[in-house]
């Protein structure tokens, strides 16, 4: 008879305890709130799925969700190709490699709220470097506290500035792992630059790109700090993304029940999209 060694559980146990305290238990309290109404003093009234219904039918949620998808879509469509392009044009060996890598990593090292504050000051129409330049040198009327389009352009640019590096570094890691023989063989086979990219570089980058897209999707879909510091969701509600809206409902209006229901829906959407994407991308590898 085969004896099973169960000692492995002892090693996993600390992590399980940690995860229980920082994820599972808080999440269960959210579930608890999402099906009840409370007026404080630990008095709860059973509410069933009412909050979920209310959230799913609310226009406010729909438009925040729409803005959220638009934001994520825009940053992905810019950051992924841009990141690949930068990675392709980076040197593969020599003195400039570490220089490029450090320069690339810099934006990611800056705390998120600092990024928001930096861009806020940077774009102020009268004293910000960019804001002043656009308004007073180029004569473009740019004020993101007034103009929704300017606000969108600013949060997208900020995210591209902050996070394209992640895509660059991951793509670069994929690129440098390609042995020289592939490029030499392609040369001998008479492959064009496009063919080299399409049939050698892109396939070899596929795994890291999947991870890059997944990380960028999750991070951007859950983004809070930077746009909150930068625009606070405004002007009006034009940059009120899901997380900003959620915090408004939970902490601004203190509607804990609807906020809890919204959190769970929000979480489910993130999970579903990530799972779908990952499954589709890795489907071929399993066969």
């Amino acid at each position, binding site marked *: 008879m085969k004896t099973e060694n169960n000692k492995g559980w002892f090693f996993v146990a600390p992590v399980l305890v940690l995860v229980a305290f920082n994820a599972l238990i808080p999440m269960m309290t959210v579930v608890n709130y999402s099906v009840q109404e409370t007026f404080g003093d630990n008095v709860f009234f059973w509410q069933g799925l009412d909050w979920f219904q209310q959230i799913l039918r609310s226009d406010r949620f729909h438009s925040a969700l729409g803005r959220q998808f638009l934001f994520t879509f825009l940053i992905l469509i810019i950051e992924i190709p841009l990141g690949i392009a930068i990675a392709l044009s980076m040197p593969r060996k020599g003195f400039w490699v570490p220089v490029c890598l450090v320069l690339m990593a810099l934006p990611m090292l800056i705390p998120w709220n600092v990024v928001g504050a930096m861009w806020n000051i940077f774009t102020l129409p009268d004293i910000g470097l960019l804001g002043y330049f656009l308004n007073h040198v180029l004569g473009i009327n740019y004020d993101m506290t007034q103009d929704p389009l300017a606000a969108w352009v600013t949060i997208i640019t900020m995210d591209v500035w902050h996070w394209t590096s992640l895509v660059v570094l991951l793509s670069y890691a994929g690129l440098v792992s390609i042995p020289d*023989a*592939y490029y030499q063989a392609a*040369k001998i086979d*008479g492959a064009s630059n496009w063919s080299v990219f399409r*049939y*050698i570089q892109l396939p070899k980058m596929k795994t890291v790109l999947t991870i890059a897209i997944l990380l960028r999707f999750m991070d951007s879909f859950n983004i809070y700090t930077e746009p909150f510091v930068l625009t606070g969701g405004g002007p009006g509600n034009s940059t009120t993304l899901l997380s900003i809206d959620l915090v408004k409902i939970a902490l601004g209006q203190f509607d804990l029940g609807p906020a809890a229901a919204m959190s769970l829906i929000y979480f489910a959407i993130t999970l579903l999209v990530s799972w779908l994407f990952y499954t589709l991308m890795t489907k071929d590898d399993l066969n």
Partner: protein
Amino acid sequence: MAKITLSNLRHSYYPNPSSPSDYALKEIDLDWSDGGAYALLGPSGCGKSTLLNIISGLLVPSEGRILFDGQDVTELAPDKRNIAQVFQFPVIYDTMSVYDNLAFPLRNRGRDEDTVRSRVMAIAEMLEVTDMLDQKAAGLSPDNKQKISMGRGLVREDVNVVMFDEPLTVIDPHLKWKLRSKLKELHQRVKATMIYVTHDQTEALTFADQVVVMQLGEVVQIGTPVELFERPAHTFVGHFIGSPGMNVLPCEVSAGQAMLGGQPVALEGPIQGEAKGQTEIGIRPEFVSLAETGLPATVTKVSDLGRHMVVEADLNGTTVSAVINGTPPEKGAQVHLQFRPDQTRLYVDGWIATNPQEG
């Protein structure tokens, strides 16, 4: 198919080479005739891959020229030279099917699909991969991947030369032999010039009609496998080819006579020129025998290689190996060594210095 001429080729990886040691390749002059099967044999770092990359055009030599059929191709890009190269690790295009992999070089050159199809089918049949054509290339075993990368080289009907850069390194031992004979068979069928780079003497000797032995960026000897075995032009070749390698024994020369530990040793013939410098006697273990008389030595080690025994004996402080059939002596026994005179040669500063006796 073409005759390949390398003339005064030198290559250095440094921008301003000054001393000979800066050169990865020192002065190479070689002719590879059309349709020949060649092997480039040498230890790691001897410059054989550099030479290969120069022929394929992946490297431009610092000095000298490469001619294909008399035409200078030194500055030509790899895809313009019409050559094929198979690398150490199989290079395949993962996302394509086997068929598309084989068709890739032809499609890049704008051939029509009918030509592509007939060439791919012909090559697939030759390599026995016809039943895999629809599969994704990524899922193949290493030996099949290597076959596909070979096929990509052979699929163009007009390749000047097919080069193999240690192509069997990652192949399982029992498949190595199969693939090697496949290569030999392919050479006979397609009649293209083939150059096979390896550090494995068995691979080189079984594949090639002519073996080019290289050491430290220089060609040491070019010859048929038999020539290399029987008359190594340099002690390095003697060492490198054969198992165990040739015995190289430091000796003195006085009055045209080689002396080993005070005893005269008969050579294959007269010594050319003056024997100045480092003088050594070279004899293959196969031609050393144990006898009643001869050079006295002490047996230090006996190894049973199955087909025969290798006896190592200490002769005045140097080890001499002998290949023996039958019962070997015990370790520690006193023996007398006899060298077959017509296989005993003198080397001066590493290079052969005796001429075989006429008649």
